[in-house]
Structures are given as structure tokens and as C-alpha cells.
């Protein structure tokens, strides 16, 4: 792994990524996107555009804004830049390419909920964001921005875990309710929004909900693809078209994972019939698994990783995911199904549900391969470590 910026590719769909290749300065930002108009009803814009959160949960942004608005007390905005999913790099890329667009969106969201404070929870150093903050005009933003480092562990991006981390506590989820909108940072009504969601909001404020239409999304492509890295794609296209428009695949595939490790496997012959939308793409990580690697071992490694990345707070997840990982590694189909059913919906957060969904989906798409493992202990292929677990 390198610490360098992940590649972000500009293509015909580029909206958020329109500034790729230009310096992330305020002057270039204004040249690329224009000034942020004032006086918009942001709640109305969010509702009319049907914008959904891009952190993985796809919660309607307008509903989140409204939930904070209706609370008494002094609200605060938290920008979720934890990005703990190993296959996702789009938030850090966006903060490198268009930090001012994210700041615009955060200021808009803060003004919409009557807040003067924006706190970034960032999983990794973001020098471009630091530099952009020094260029902001306080009189225009009418909010203060604060950057705080949080762990980049898998669960740190869960919104209650992020709030805990910002409190200086271990980044572990808390029971909901209370939701952050009710009692979040410092006990205050808190709007938690993903980096990319806020950047979309900043463009919707400029161009209107009609322009946004179906919208675009950032995806992080990995595996057997010609141009791995971050791309911007229109929502509502098929997975096959998405892969083709981002440079295509480089090998025969065993399957494509859509939506990262809480997502779903798609069989190669189904990519033309699966439409990628804001509700099935998670945080936008898409991994093309080549047929050359051992899919069973790749997936077993991911289930083990998810078991280890749990917050270890809730019994069913703490005990159930290691058991699930063991059953998956032994290709015990019935036991994987039973354990997946046993752990789902029994945690304080959706971590066990996500891991169970991944395991079940792998059972479906890699049924033959797993059967070979169950019968012979191996399929003859080795784990090429295409699915990142670091």
C-alpha cells in the first residue's frame, strides 16, 4: 500500500470531479464551479433532488436535515470523513481534488440546520483540506470549521461511533435511539453527513434539483479493471455499462462486488441486468474479482476481517462473526446460512447484518466453487488477495 493520492479519473460524467487535474485552490474552485449562491432553501433543494447519503446507508439527506431542524438546542454539523472501508477511497480523493466544494456543502448544511459549527472527523491526514480551510472567507461561510482526526477502522465511520471518536472515546457505536440528530456531539442535535453527500449538495445549490436529476456518484473501482481508482458515474446505469465506461475489465471474472463489504456479489452474466443506484451501491466500492483467484478464500478472508473489525460490544456479533468466518472458511454452506440468520439484526449497529449479507451473497454467487471446497478442500486456485483487508 502506498500513501499517495488514489487516482481519480475525470470523464464525461464529471461533476464533482470536474476539477481533476487543477490545483485545489479557492481560485480554481470558483473558476470550475462558480460562486455558491446565497438564499437557497437547502432543505427544499435536498428534498426536490432526492439526494441520499453517500456514506453507505443511503439515508435521504432532506430527512436528516429535517430531523436536526426539529430539535431544540444548539445544533452542530459533523462531516464524516472516516472512510474506514478498505475498498473505498472516494472521500479522501474528493477532499484532495475538491476540498472547497465539500466545505461549501458543509457550510450550506450548517446554515440549513441553524448551526455555526462544522466538525470534520477525518480518518487520514488531508493536507489539501487544511490548505483550503486557510483560504475560506469567514464572512461568506458564517460557520467555523474544525478538523479532528479519528481512527480509520471499519466501524469508525458508523455515525454514532464517529461521534464517540470525536468525544475522545473509542470509536464504537452506541445504541440508537438516541440518534445523533437527537443527542450527538456534546449532547447537541447533530447532523452527520458524508463528504461526498455535502459536495453534491453544493452543486445542487448552484444548479438546482432539475439539473441534478438522477445524479452522479463516486465509485472506487478495484480488482481486475483497466483503470482502478475513483471514478464519477451517472446513477441508474447498469453495472456492465459502469464497468465499460470506466475502462473495462482486464480478465474473465468470477463475480463483481457492488457496495463494498456490506454489499452484494453479482455474477458475471448478470452485470448487464443490475442497475447501480444510490440504494445498492453502499459507499461506492466496486470490486471485479478475476476468475483466476480463489473466490472462496478471498471471501473467507473478508468475513474474517469483518469479524475482527467488530466493536466487540454485542455478544451476537462478538461470538457470531468469528463462528461465521470459521464456517465460511470450511465451506459449510448450511452452517454459514444458519449463523448469518442468527447474527443479523441483533447488534447495536448494522455490522453483523453487513457481514451476514456478504457471506450469504458469496454463497449464492460462488456456490460451485464453495461446493468444490466442501468436497475436496480446495479448488486448486490460490488467494490472490484481490479483496483488500488492510
Amino acid at each position, binding site marked *: 500500500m502506498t500513501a499517495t493520492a488514489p487516482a481519480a479519473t475525470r470523464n464525461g460524467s464529471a461533476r464533482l470531479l470536474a476539477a481533476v487535474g487543477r490545483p485545489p485552490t479557492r481560485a480554481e474552485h470558483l473558476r470550475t464551479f462558480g460562486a455558491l449562491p446565497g438564499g437557497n432553501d437547502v432543505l427544499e433543494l435536498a428534498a426536490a433532488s432526492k439526494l441520499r447519503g453517500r456514506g453507505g446507508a443511503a439515508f435521504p439527506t432532506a430527512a436528516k436535515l429535517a430531523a436536526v431542524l426539529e430539535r431544540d438546542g444548539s445544533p452542530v454539523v459533523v462531516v464524516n470523513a472516516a472512510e474506514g472501508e478498505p475498498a473505498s477511497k472516494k472521500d479522501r480523493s474528493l477532499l484532495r481534488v475538491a476540498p472547497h466544494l465539500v466545505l461549501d456543502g458543509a457550510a450550506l448544511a450548517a446554515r440549513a440546520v441553524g448551526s455555526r459549527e462544522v466538525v470534520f472527523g477525518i480518518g487520514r491526514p488531508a493536507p489539501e483540506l487544511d490548505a483550503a480551510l486557510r483560504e475560506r472567507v469567514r464572512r461568506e461561510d458564517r460557520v467555523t470549521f474544525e478538523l479532528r482526526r479519528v481512527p480509520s477502522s471499519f466501524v469508525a465511520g458508523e455515525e454514532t461511533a464517529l461521534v464517540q471518536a470525536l468525544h475522545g472515546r473509542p470509536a464504537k457505536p*452506541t*445504541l440508537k435511539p438516541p440518534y445523533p440528530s437527537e443527542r450527538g456531539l456534546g449532547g447537541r442535535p447533530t447532523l452527520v453527513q458524508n463528504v461526498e453527500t455535502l459536495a453534491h449538495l453544493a452543486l445542487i445549490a448552484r444548479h438546482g434539483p432539475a439539473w441534478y436529476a438522477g445524479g452522479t456518484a463516486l465509485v472506487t473501482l478495484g480488482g481486475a479493471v483497466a483503470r482502478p481508482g475513483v471514478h464519477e458515474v451517472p446513477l441508474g446505469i447498469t453495472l456492465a455499462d459502469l464497468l465499460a465506461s470506466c475502462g473495462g475489465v482486464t480478465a474473465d471474472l468470477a463475480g463483481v462486488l457492488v457496495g463494498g463489504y456490506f454489499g452484494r456479489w453479482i455474477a458475471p452474466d448478470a452485470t448487464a441486468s443490475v442497475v447501480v443506484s444510490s440504494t445498492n451501491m453502499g459507499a461506492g466500492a466496486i470490486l471485479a474479482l478475476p476468475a483466476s483467484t480463489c473466490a472462496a478464500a478471498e471471501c473467507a478472508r473478508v468475513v474474517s476481517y469483518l469479524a475482527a473489525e467488530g466493536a466487540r*460490544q*454485542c455478544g*451476537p456479533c462478538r*461470538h*457470531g462473526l468469528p463462528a461465521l468466518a470459521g464456517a465460511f472458511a470450511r465451506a459449510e454452506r448450511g452452517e454459514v446460512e444458519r449463523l448469518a440468520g442468527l447474527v443479523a439484526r*441483533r*447488534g*447495536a449497529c448494522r455490522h453483523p447484518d453487513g457481514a451476514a449479507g456478504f457471506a450469504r451473497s458469496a454463497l449464492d454467487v460462488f456456490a460451485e466453487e464453495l461446493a468444490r471446497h466442501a468436497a475436496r478442500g480446495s479448488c486448486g486456485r490460490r488467494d490472490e488477495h484481490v479483496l483488500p483487508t488492510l
Partner: protein
Amino acid sequence: MTHPSRPVTLRVDPIACDGKGLCAELFPERVTLDDWGFPLIDPTPVPRSLERTARRAVASCPRCALSLAR
């Protein structure tokens, strides 16, 4: 309560729960235990005839992880 007719259901706070298992002993009508001794709660509403039993189970949880919600 403002809705006396609304059914009550049993809930567990999975973070607070440490799998002592008292709830399953005291209220087997709605609680069984999983492979590791953690409660599996039947979400079916608790009938009036079982409310006393349910309340005793709630009060007995050493971690205060069990509650009745309307």
C-alpha cells in the same frame, strides 16, 4: 401510558447485555438463548397475562439490558 391498549414488546440492549441468561430462565415464553448464551427475543407482543412475568425478567437482569417497550 397514553395508549393502554398498545401491546408491549420485550427488547434487549445488545451492548449492555453480557449473556448471563437469567431472562431466558425467567421468561422462556419470549426468550431463548443462542449458541453463546445471548438472548433471542421473540418480538411478538407480550399478552397481559404474561406482563407480570415479563416485568420480573426485566427487573432481574443484572445488566439492566432488558426493557419493555410500548
